[in-house]
């Protein structure tokens, strides 16, 4: 039976991604981490979100992984094979070591594993789909709101950043150099926070009016395809995820 990505239920994406998170957290060697990352990237590619994933790695999880690698590569305690050493002051001793590089690479891959598992859960799923899935799982409405708005935060934040940025450009605030752009970004943080807080307050009132907190069964306009196979798959993958968690804790 052929399964195309458009027929995957949002709940299936969420279970797939969330079940991969424990795998990212348990202890694995570098080879297993690399294979896991490749597998996860294949799933992201199949979901059709490789472009968005690329941006997410480049701007979010990638720099964290690279920083973790760099720190470990030059500061691994108890290293035996030292490739280079630099001691700028008596209390700072950077040693690039084989063990540090290996440990840093494993840690970096672990961060990428974690980020990619989260990407599988959230990139192929829109805000509306996530809300539908979480509501179907009977989660409390306020928690759903928090999760969906957290997922939607980059979209909303980018809108606010755009508004502040546009306002600065309209007023002729210099943006000709990297330095002036960085300065503008720093000075806009207060404005951005003001704007977000004010609109968030208004939005919260509006949502409350429209029944955010009211209990009851919700009817959704949209339906999402689901099959027996996907339901079974969700149970199996979910159970595997839980087993991995238990195994990770016991080990």
């Amino acid at each position: 039976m052929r399964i195309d990505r458009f027929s995957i239920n949002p709940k299936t994406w969420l279970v797939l991604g969330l079940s991969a998170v424990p795998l990212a957290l348990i202890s694995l060697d570098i080879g297993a981490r690399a294979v896991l990352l490749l597998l996860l990237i294949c799933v992201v590619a199949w979901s059709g979100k490789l472009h968005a994933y690329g941006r997410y790695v480049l701007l979010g999880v990638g720099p964290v992984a690279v920083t973790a690698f760099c720190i470990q590569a030059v500061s691994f305690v108890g290293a035996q094979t030292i490739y280079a050493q630099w001691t700028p002051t008596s209390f700072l001793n950077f040693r690039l070591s084989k063990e540090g590089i290996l440990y840093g690479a494993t840690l970096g891959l672990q961060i990428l594993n974690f980020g990619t598992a989260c990407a599988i859960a959230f990139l192929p799923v829109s805000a509306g789909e996530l809300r539908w899935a979480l509501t179907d799982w009977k989660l409390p409405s306020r928690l759903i709101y928090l999760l969906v708005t957290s997922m939607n935060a980059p979209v909303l934040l980018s809108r606010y950043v755009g508004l502040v940025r546009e306002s600065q450009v309209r007023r002729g605030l210099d943006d000709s150099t990297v330095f002036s752009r960085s300065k503008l970004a720093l000075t806009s943080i207060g404005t951005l926070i003001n704007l977000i807080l004010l609109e968030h307050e208004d939005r919260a009132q509006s949502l409350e009016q429209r029944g955010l907190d009211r209990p009851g069964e919700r009817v959704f306009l949209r339906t999402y395809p689901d099959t027996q196979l996907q339901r079974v798959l969700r149970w199996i993958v979910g159970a595997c995820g839980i087993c991995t968690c238990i195994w990770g804790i016991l080990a």
Partner: protein
Amino acid sequence: MRHRKVLVLGEGQDARAEFLAEHPEALVLQANPYANISGLADTVEDEIAYGVELTASNRDAMRQSVHEVSEKLGITYLLGKHPLGLSGGQTQLVALAGIFTIKSTALFLENPLVGLDASARQRALALMEQYRGELMWSNPARVGEDERALATSIVEEVFEHVLADQQSIKWRLAPAALVAENLEVPVPSARWSKRTGQTLLSGVTLEVAPGESLALTGANGSGKSTLLKTLAGIAKPKSGRVRVGEQDVARTKTKRRPQLISLATQQPRYQILTTSVEREITAGASEGKDYGRQLLQSFDLESSAAENPYDLSNSAQQLLAVACALASAPSVLALDEPSASLSPQDYQTLVGLLNSFTQAGGVLVVASHDEELIRDINARVFTLT
């Protein structure tokens, strides 16, 4: 039984409190249309349906009520779009549809007609007329006869505002014509989404001489705001160019551009950059404190100089946005819906200053649905279709 339809002339904070005390079940539509968009929906249709998800008996009934209200407001063509990618007027219509779909027994609407074109305004008024429940709405700006005719009673808020002696201002500007040649304007895309590459406006050519006013008109979503941003060098055209005098706007450095053309956009709250009115007027490419103070005096905002701009009324925020746009001494002043939330007194202040600006040789370009404003500033009309 005939339900009351009460119009409040003013921002309506006190009247709203009284109304909510009398009708605790009442729903409130807030003045900022963007804050009424939940951020939880993928399409306008889902956004409108959000409020009835708990009360609808089934999906078909829900879809029917969403489509019914959307049809009445003339926004069925928007139902498949993303709610965060709409124009200001379209967002207001979606917010109205969202609240009218709920079928509450009482409604309080803050400035519900703001930013709507003439036909959308008529449709919104018709929907308000058909509403079977207690309805109160506020309008801090000038109120049309059609709006008055709908009201069963009118509450007039007492304005504490006393118009100060309007100071005449010595405008600093270098008169120059605004010329747009064969502009092709793309459909604006949200920062997070892929660019569609579609064209919104093509072949736009216009020339406005020093001392002249031009009004851009057209239906909600016709591209007025996008064209203003393109003229001001903030949005890039696909082709064509904009000149102020001999200078190409797109090729002028950001910090010099506001002296050629300066823009105040539709939502004054989104333009605030600092924590006091005094700082706001001198932020960016301004002509300095003295000129800023003169502008604050002329706009009757001097007494609010130390206040945080967020604490001003909507009307005063709108005046401040225009004053800030003028603080760079531009040859061309571009304004997007500058009169939408202005109180009648502030409207008079604005009209007086805009006319004085053009008499001094300034070019004024205004995107507006406000026919009275267009008449009062004696603007030539350029309609976008």
